[in-house]
């Protein structure tokens, strides 16, 4: 599937604080890039499926982020809300090549949840 995606370099892994995130502004809205304690990088739509909270501002732990508004916990890989909550933040293919972070924006999939994502 990788071949069909065109990748756009948006910065380097080092630009994202470990256990933190940075935002990329795109035509699809803001995409939040997360870097975990193990240096994995993930990309989610920067909107919590609960009420649209900016996930990029949450606390990153393991491969999860806790939304800063009402503490929903979102799985970084799938964008799905964890445990009793239900909803999904959109997610975007992302990869790291020689330290450069690349987004497969064309394959971005918007989320679903309580904030009008359908």
């Amino acid at each position: 599937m990788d071949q069909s995606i065109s990748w756009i370099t948006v910065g380097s892994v080092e630009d994202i604080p470990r256990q933190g995130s940075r935002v990329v502004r795109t035509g699809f809205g803001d995409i939040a890039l997360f870097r975990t304690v193990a240096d994995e990088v993930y990309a989610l739509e920067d909107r919590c499926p609960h009420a649209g909270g900016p996930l990029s501002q949450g606390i990153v732990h393991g491969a999860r982020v806790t939304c800063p508004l009402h503490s929903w916990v979102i799985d970084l890989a799938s964008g799905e809300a964890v445990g009793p909550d239900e909803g999904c933040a959109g997610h975007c293919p992302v990869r790291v090549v020689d330290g450069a972070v690349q987004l497969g924006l064309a394959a971005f999939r918007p989320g679903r949840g309580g904030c009008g994502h359908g």
Partner: protein
Amino acid sequence: MSTHTNPPTPRERLVVVGNGMAGIRTLEELLAKAPDRYDITVFGAEPHPNYNRIMLSPVLAGEKTFEQIVLNGRDWYEANGIRLLTGDRVEVIDRANCTVTAISGLTVPYDKLLIATGSTPVIIPVPGSTLTGVVGFRDLADVDTMLEAAARGGRAVVIGGGLLGLEAANGLKVKGMDVTVLHLMDTLMERQLDRSAGALLRHELERRGITVLTGADTAEIVGSEKVSAVRLKNGQELPADLVVMAVGIRPNTTLGKAAGLACGRGIQVDDAMTTSDPAILSVGECVEHRGQTYGLVAPLFEMAKVAAARLAGSAEAAYTGSVTSTKLKVTGVDVFSAGDFTGGKDCEDIVFRDAARGVYKRVVVKENRILGAVLYGDTKDGGWYFQMLKDGTEVAPVRDTLIFGQSFGGEGAANPKAAVAALPDSAEICGCNGVCKGTIVTAITEKGLSSLDEVRAHTKASASCGSCTGQVEQLLALTLGDGYAGEAKAKPMCKCTDRTHDEVRRAITALDLKTIPDVMQRLEWRTPDGCHHCRPALNYYLLCEWPGEYKDDSRSRYINERVHANIQKDGTYSVVPRMWGGLTSAKELRAIADVVDKFAIPTVKVTGGQRIDLFGVKKEDLPAVWADLNAAGMVSGHAYAKGLRTVKTCVGSEWCRFGTQDSTGLGVKLERMTWGTWTPHKVKLAVSGCPRNCAEATIKDLGVVCVDSGYELHVGGNGGMHVRACDLLVKVETEAEVLEYTGAYMQLYREEARYLERTAPWVERVGLDHIRRRLVDDAEGRAALNARFLFSQSFSQDDPWAERANGSVDRHEFAPLAQVG
């Protein structure tokens, strides 16, 4: 009987370039399969017969001699009819004529050629990298250079905190040098170890006297002829008599490239280990197979097997790539890592920490199969995990006990109570206080103890870090049988641990824990880096315990405290400048008005705490807004903090006809003393000038009501979801006493309350009597608490806005990474 014999078929000629581990292993395999097929010639650039390169580290450390690491002596070559040419580097491969020519001028023809030239150390091209005294760590000559330098003593700087660098560092330290390791990343061996294991390794090396500098980027090696120092990009200079470069290896493709073989990072080979020329095979570190290169022996041996089979005539043998595992060969430091331990999509992390033994294990499981493992301190199950990883074994049936290792399962291990019962009386239960099993059991029977608290009070067991609490409880159960009711379990901090907030705090003090990873390791956290419940709590507890020393972890703070503004429902922020005691001025108001205009701030509101709140500020604008407010002399109001927010005041004696004291002035003094503090939850103070209490001082965390004869101090009030009126703590006569009591009360709250527990529930939990005892009855204790408070304040009264407005802190927080599409 035949009268003539056929002349023996001429043997094919095999030439091997590279007398190292992969080349000779291929020959060993080949001789076992087809001993007579080839006339073999081996060229080796080094002057030695084939030796075990990975054992150079023990040779450096003095644990082995060179003779002990020779794999095949010259007699082996002779016995197998192999022509060995040592100290003779092959310079040219002539593919058209099928010959190789070495530096000595010798030309040898081949039918088959095997290239096994290994790799060369990467030398970073900084100025000075060619000075005398700079070595790599690759062959015996390097080890000899290091041993000579070590014999003269002095200082060594090892650049590179990976496997090789650390083995070199350890060897040089053992040989008596003063050793510093410079590592670019912030985790040692980051490709093999996760951060927790890396931190343990670092502690262990430091304990051995090796200095470790992470995030250290080399700028220059200083010296005129011989090295004298290493200078870092940040300007720091480290004196050095020897510099070891161990920053990586590069496949040695010089020969292959010159001969026109297809090369990427290494000499490219197919699954048959054949290069782009069918007469030439290649194995070892010099090859690239399916895009991968390898730097460890296990995969090279797998390649050797395939190459040997092919050379012996097999058409099937195929190499399909390897999964690798690593062990560090530093005596007394057990480190193992295999596969991918970074985790990721749909992965499950199983973490085990045994602080007492210094053991850390992490196994990453995906779809019921092991993906990777990191072991520190106890690596005996490394092979077991690695085998399951390679075989793709389904681990669901053993999932629950997987992390305990292969030998797990006996009655003693499965049933903790039986395990404790089986211990001798002399077994130490509580490591902190040195209490053994016999002492505890005797105390229980002779003194008639029946609860954990009583055991703690009488024996001290489990009274410090609490890691033996479980065992002490089991002893209670064993000794009292049905007579032991069990403890009313306090709730653990969060799902990452079984410890309660109080136990964790006790442990931080008792065990001298100074970082979040330290706490997680010693207290056996179950997750790699905690969660949003425990991390902010731990950050606070450490900050409170080690003022001035602990480095705040911004990644463990809620967003408001991280960016020093309040996040609002639409993702914008609100900003509250501090107004001391609720006072402001025309200049401040004008500055606020200007900021509102300049940044088109939509809403301006007076807060419940008498401050002005500016709503709807975009995150990117925050630094500029702060800069303007700072310029008018205003600092952050900490309206977002688990800390002191406001001191609300009434007008008091200065203007009010009822006022008995200067409540506004006292409010300003209190705010000047307490601002900037970090507390378990938000704290609000108030001062009213008379019992009419216009500042609503009796529903605050601490409220002062001025009366004719002095000041009444009220504590534990709350205007939040559960309204609670204050309790009267004490009446005092002077402002100085008000200040001292306030500092002491704040500190007691800081030291005793659980994170996110406001003063009202805290006061109810510990009881007003307890607080009176500590603050009113014990003047000395009160003074000490106040002193601790003021000491901690001396580090925390910096305006967080200023350092962000000028861009010196957390600049990345406020700007998007990129704009695309």
